[in-house]
């Protein structure tokens, strides 16, 4: 059961301008598991989620979700597929003109013809699951960052999706709300038998809930495996990231001339202006 691939990414290439972001990514994401995609900042992890969600189109390669090629679908079929996905954005991305209750009710209202009473019950259940049933009348501006993310999580699961994509769920959270979110993601995944994809660079939290990990750097998958196998991986790029060493194959310094020449040498750049 757990080994049936839900998402397959085959030989994916993507570039922005002259900058190559992905150069041949291959991934298989199994049904019912929490899969984490990790890597240093700026390696395009969020871009990968957008490619999976069909918001960006790759230069080459394809993404299959449950056997359907995301980028070959008609607009209508793509929107139908998206009903089976939830996505949690980095900022929460709650609709600022609706209150908490209406935010969670939004997917239900647009995609179902349920009577108001039933929508109300469903929304309250989802809010109960994230512990914010009491905050239903607040507007998004009145929520803290962690609360906003929890409401967004309730909204993402409102339609009982099969897949949830988490974009940096732990960034900028205090330790308490971080712990709450970790618990929630784990619990939701088990309770709803979801497939989850987490994009993150918070190693400790991610390792604690992921079933399987992909590490990307330089536009390619450099390592993959269960948390335990990665922890003992000898590849310097992997161990630098997993153990958080400041310098290594990923350099501390942005590419530049040597400090000596920059300070003492009056290079051509110094004469401009």
């Amino acid at each position: 059961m757990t080994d049936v691939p839900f998402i397959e990414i085959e030989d994916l290439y993507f570039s922005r301008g002259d900058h190559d972001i992905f150069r041949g990514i291959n991934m298989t994401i199994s049904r019912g598991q929490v899969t984490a995609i990790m890597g240093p900042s700026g390696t395009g992890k969020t871009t990968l989620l957008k490619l999976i969600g069909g918001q960006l189109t790759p230069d080459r390669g394809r993404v299959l979700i449950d056997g359907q090629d995301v980028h070959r679908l008609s607009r209508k079929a793509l929107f139908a597929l998206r009903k089976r996905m939830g996505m949690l954005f980095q900022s929460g991305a709650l609709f600022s003109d609706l209150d908490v209750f209406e935010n969670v009710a939004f997917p239900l209202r647009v995609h179902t013809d349920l009577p108001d009473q039933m929508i109300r019950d469903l929304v309250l259940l989802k809010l109960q699951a994230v512990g914010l049933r009491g905050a239903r009348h607040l507007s998004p501006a009145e929520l803290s960052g962690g609360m906003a993310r929890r409401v967004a999580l309730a909204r993402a699961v409102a339609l009982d999706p099969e897949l949830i994509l988490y974009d940096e769920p732990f960034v900028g959270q205090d330790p308490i709300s971080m712990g709450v979110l970790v618990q929630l993601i784990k619990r939701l995944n088990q309770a709803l038998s979801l497939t989850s994809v987490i994009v993150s660079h918070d190693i400790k939290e991610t390792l604690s809930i992921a079933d399987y990990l992909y590490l990307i750097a330089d536009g390619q998958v450099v390592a993959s495996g269960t948390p335990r196998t990665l922890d003992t991986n000898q590849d310097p790029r992997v161990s630098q990231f997993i153990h958080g060493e400041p310098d290594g194959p990923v350099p501390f310094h942005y590419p530049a001339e040597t400090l000596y020449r920059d300070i003492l040498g009056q290079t051509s750049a110094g004469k401009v202006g």
Partner: protein
Amino acid sequence: MQSNVKHAISHVAQLGRKGCDALESLGRAGVFLAQSAVGVPSREGWSLWLRQVHFVGVLSLAIVLVSGLFIGMVLALQGYTILVDFGAEQALGQMVALSLLRELAPVVAALLFAGRAGSALTAEIGLMKATEQLTSMEMIGVDPLRRVVAPRLWAGFISLPILTVGFSVVGIWGGYLVGVEWLGVFEGSYWSNMQASVSFVNDIGNGIIKSLVFAVVVTWIAVFQGYDLVPTSEGISRATTRTVVYSSLAVLGLDFVLTAVMFGGL
């Protein structure tokens, strides 16, 4: 010598690239308008639209009416001092009404609308984009063009003509206050001269057609700038400025064209 030529060529190339960019962005804006304005209103479309009419129309009413009042009063004052030299001050009503209906009401209301509602639309949509609300809407499977953009477009299309009518009415009343109540033009000739010279179809109708055209252009620019901006705080402030600048220029330029077609015998 050769470097000069190279320099010149690179300048020409840059110019060409800018032209291509401008054309491309115009094309994007056109596709954008077509996709969002044609959308079939959803179940909720009506209440969303209503909310936007409130936002862009009702809330702009005060500034438009106050400006209209003052412009009507100034017109009467200036017109009177000129007309009285020819002993033609009884034509004051005609002058006030025609300048308002044909030119000032559509143009000034559109400029105020661009400043008040257009910039707010750009900033609002831009902020929704910057906070990923548009993306998340798309991921929920709702087209933001229909849900966010279309009601705002249609609200703008409806609101500006109404504001323009309000501007004219208040302006004519302001002209009456100054001309009749203050400067002592005979009330009967103020109204009858106006009635004799204003044609419903040619003057009022054309004024409303003008304001409809301006409404489409201003709202389109505002909403597109918001949708197409770079989602950073700097990008939002730039796009807001662009909205006001572009829509003011577009209104004034189009006004000349429309006036030439409607009243210039072209």
